[in-house]
């Protein structure tokens, strides 16, 4: 019975980690879209130099382990820039910049899957290239990308636990703290695992609902 009381006693402390974890995931997904989508557009439609710079970016953030990126930013880049930022800020930034690299490639594939005729038709009614991309290409590409993009959620959610290494007070960090305070291991880690699974399930359900909501005849998104 001992560990049950311990769990009940520490549960509120653990629960607070959910906010940090979800905060990390939300920042990463947000930055991923805000940076990843324009990067994808740049990679498909941009000039040679633009495409080159984006390729370098993607290569860098996909090429390094998260842990290396975290330490690089936490101990190197941010201090080097004279910025005194929280561990959470570093974690959210690194997951976000890394997410943007991955997500840009999901969006790039989706943009390239939109048939060439769509751009031709948009230009033929007098839209500029930018108007065509915004009003015709992206609305279609985003629908194509959504299933693949949704898959980034569990990836980033599970990846976020590695922010433990720089002391972000998220689920994993708090779990370890409780373990070292109470010497109860298995039950505490199981509770932590349970919370991750619930967050995963809930998030995927929510994303699936969005997919269904923006579903349009002729687009295979979220098809059974």
């Amino acid at each position: 019975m001992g560990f049950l009381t311990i769990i009940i006693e520490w549960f509120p402390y653990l629960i607070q980690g959910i906010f940090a974890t979800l905060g990390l995931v939300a920042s990463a997904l947000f930055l991923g879209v805000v940076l990843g989508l324009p990067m994808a557009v740049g990679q498909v439609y941009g000039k040679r130099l633009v495409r080159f710079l984006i390729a370098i970016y993607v290569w860098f953030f996909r090429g390094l382990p998260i842990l290396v990126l975290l330490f690089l930013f936490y101990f190197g880049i941010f201090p080097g820039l004279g910025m005194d930022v929280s561990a959470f800020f570093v974690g959210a930034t690194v997951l976000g910049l890394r997410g943007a690299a991955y997500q840009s490639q999901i969006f790039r594939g989706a943009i390239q899957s939109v048939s060439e005729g769509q751009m031709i038709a948009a230009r033929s009614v007098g839209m500029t290239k930018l108007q065509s991309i915004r009003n015709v290409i992206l609305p279609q590409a985003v629908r194509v990308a959504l299933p693949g993009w949704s898959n980034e959620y569990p990836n980033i959610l599970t990846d976020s636990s590695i922010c433990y290494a720089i002391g972000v007070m998220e689920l994993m960090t708090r779990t370890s703290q409780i373990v070292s305070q109470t010497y109860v291991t298995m039950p505490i880690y199981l509770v932590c695992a349970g919370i991750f699974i619930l967050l995963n399930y809930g998030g995927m359900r929510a994303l699936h609902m969005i997919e269904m909501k923006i579903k349009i005849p002729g687009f295979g998104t979220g098809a059974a």
Partner: protein
Amino acid sequence: MENTDTILRVENIHKSFGDLEVLKGVSFDVKKGETICFIGPSGTGKSTLLRCINLLTQPDQGSVWLGGEEVTNSGKQINHFRQRIGMVFQNFFLFDHLTAVRNVEIALIKVKGMKPKEAREKALEELRQVGMEDWAEHYPAELSGGQAQRVSIARALAMDPDVILFDEPTSALDPELTREVLEVMKKLALAGMTMIVVTHEMGFACSVANRIMFMEYGEIIEQGSPQELMSDAKFERCKNFIGQFDGVNGD
């Protein structure tokens, strides 16, 4: 006489893709309200010629004039000219993520800056013109080829263009659907719309066109009215071409 005004002038258009010279100096004039049909074997540059008119394909040489203004070398102004040159494609190219009515109104809103309510009214009016008003809220994937093509004609019409280019508008359709699209086009021609039509529909060309251009190997080889084409001996090559169809269609 307004009817004799030249609305579109195409001068000496050349276009090569790599080593292949697709257009070898094509010139012609179109008068306001005229319907001109381009016929000829596949791969002779008819579609490329159409795309050179609104610069979807950049010609290597030559010029295009719309109502006395030069379309070629117009820089950013090209988007303005394209509003005045409608285009209908073989494979429709409707915007797949938009309903029929949204397909027609989007350029009115985004390009012409029309108010959404006004644009909706105009779009519905154009859909009525092509008999598609009952399908306004349907997506392209839910339309037959003939219906989709009629919506795409409405999309072109909505911009109030000076001329509409039809690039083999019925080549992707079965005979029944072809007929419903040709009827719409015939109605437009009779209503005085200026049209340039690349087609393999000889019946349509002969009954609707003011002039027929026969193209081969990147040049206009023979041209004249349908009547001339039927009777005049100089249209030998063209008659041979049409004769092939008769052969296939059976004795």
